[in-house]
């Protein structure tokens, strides 16, 4: 904190007020409401509600669909993180080697970041449309019967690809920044000692950027959990037969379409616990990074 500060005055409260009011009205109050509603069950006509303690949560824990959705979300997130990060790491590793046109590669690789998830979904729907899609056409030439609207596994693979595609730019930038931060002398010393480029990558570069890898793993997981709603909504609506119904989509679907307020609120609360957990990990990591600097 600063040694030299202005003394307490109403002005300080005035300055911080807009942020605090918006935070309270649109973040804390609704979150509290979700918590409260998660303990209620509405009757069939929506006229009254009854306080039921943890019944909504117990119901969710016993609900086969919810448990499936949980497992599916975990699988989806890990696959998105893994696909996107490995692709980005390969590109960043090679981009570091390239002497010419690094700025050009960066330019050509970063703009998918600016594409909204739902638009990314729309483009891929067009490419993979079961009857019209250009990729479907090529897949059929190879004898692959592609129809993600009927085949759940194909639908899952497709949404993973789209979500990963959109995140490559972000991961690439962070990996590239991380690799650039490694002192050249270290890599040159290894080269003089006779280790080849691949060995250097695995024994020097990869271990040194592991904090960034871990950070990106958390960020990508959060992204796959919460920011992929648009992709699912436009491409599959959770289908076919719930094959792509991840938790965020289920909250929306049960709350807004199914109008199950208590159930949706209980799901919200579970999601909040997950975000708090993930943000906690992320911040522990940031603190560490600052300490060792």
């Amino acid at each position, binding site marked *: 904190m600063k040694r030299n500060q202005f003394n307490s005055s109403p002005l300080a409260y005035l300055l911080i007020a807009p*942020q*605090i009011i918006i935070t309270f009205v649109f*973040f804390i109050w609704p979150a509290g409401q979700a918590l409260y509603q998660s303990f209620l069950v509405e009757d069939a006509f929506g006229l009254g509600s009854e306080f039921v303690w943890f019944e909504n949560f117990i119901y969710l824990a016993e609900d086969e669909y919810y448990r499936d959705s949980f497992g599916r979300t975990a699988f989806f997130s890990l696959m998105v993180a893994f696909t996107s990060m490995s692709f980005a790491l390969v590109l960043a590793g*090679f981009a570091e080697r390239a002497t010419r046109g690094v700025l050009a*590669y960066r330019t050509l690789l970063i703009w998918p970041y600016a594409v909204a998830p739902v638009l990314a979904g729309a483009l891929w729907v067009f*490419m993979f449309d079961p009857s*019209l899609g250009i990729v479907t056409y090529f897949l059929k030439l190879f004898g692959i019967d592609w129809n993600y609207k009927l085949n759940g596994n194909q639908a899952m693979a497709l949404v993973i690809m789209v979500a990963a595609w959109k995140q490559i730019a972000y991961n690439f930038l962070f990996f590239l920044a991380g690799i650039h931060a490694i002192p050249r002398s270290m890599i040159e010393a290894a080269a003089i000692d006779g280790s080849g480029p691949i060995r250097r990558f695995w024994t020097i570069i990869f271990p040194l950027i592991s904090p960034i890898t871990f950070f990106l793993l958390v960020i990508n997981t959060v992204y796959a959990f919460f920011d992929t709603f648009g992709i699912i909504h*436009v491409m599959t609506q959770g289908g076919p037969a719930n094959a792509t119904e991840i938790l965020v989509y289920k909250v929306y679907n049960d709350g807004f379409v199914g109008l199950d307020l208590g159930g949706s609120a209980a799901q919200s609360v579970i999601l909040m616990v997950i*975000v708090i957990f993930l943000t906690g990990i992320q911040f522990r990591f940031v603190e560490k990074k600052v300490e060792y600097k």
Partner: protein
Amino acid sequence: MIENRPVLDFITYLVLILGIIIIAFPIWVMFVGASHDGIRMLQVPIPLLPGDQFFQNLKETLLGSGLEGTSTAPVWLMLLNSLAMALSISIGKIAISLLSAFAIVYFRFPFKMFFFWMIFITLMLPVEVRILPTFEVVADLGMLNSYVGLSIPLIASATATFMFRQMFMTIPDELLESARLDGAGPMKFFFDFLIPLSRTNIAALFVVLFIYGWNQYLWPLLITTDRSKYTIVMSIKQMIEAAEQTPEWHIIMMTSLLAMLPPILVVLTMQKLFVKGLIESEK
């Protein structure tokens, strides 16, 4: 370059070019789709080389009254709505974050840490996890179908506040001392010293937040039922749905193109600031 290995160099450029092709292919298909007429876009296989209808489609999409068979608004209006939303979200976030970071760093007042943690909590509550109750609050406040409802609930920002806080902490104390000796009050210090010093950070953050605001999907989807307030990004879903009956892919692809052009242009023209904003706001 550390050693001379022609084969590896060849592989390096091959991998990079392949990577770019894979990343860019969906965009290329979209561009091609936007440049053919509607009939050509229904014949399998669809073309992979651009046609000559690009400007015709552009005119039809931009000035038409929305895709037939959907209830979307005219595309130019939705573009304006998106612009209004993106600008108010990004400017709003920056403004209130600057003010609160200023209060937290430069003032001594009771409950400061309490407020600090309250702002911190917003990090943990993305819209997606509190959809219904937030919708109810906005409905109770009569903010549905309005620009205020589209932007205000999204402008609280823990990351921006932290970023400005970090930045203010690096400013030497002597600056405030000398400003005070010259008789500057808090607000004068804020506007004449802090704002000019944070110019680069503000610009970098603006790029990232503009993209964030423009690309909002779930929020406008929930709170706009009046088509005059639809944003371009949320309209794509309805167009894709309508494509099941009347597939006018040339119009849909042109609309997608228009919808992603502004944020992409912002990223490409302000690349340096964008990279800075992205990497610093995550610290």
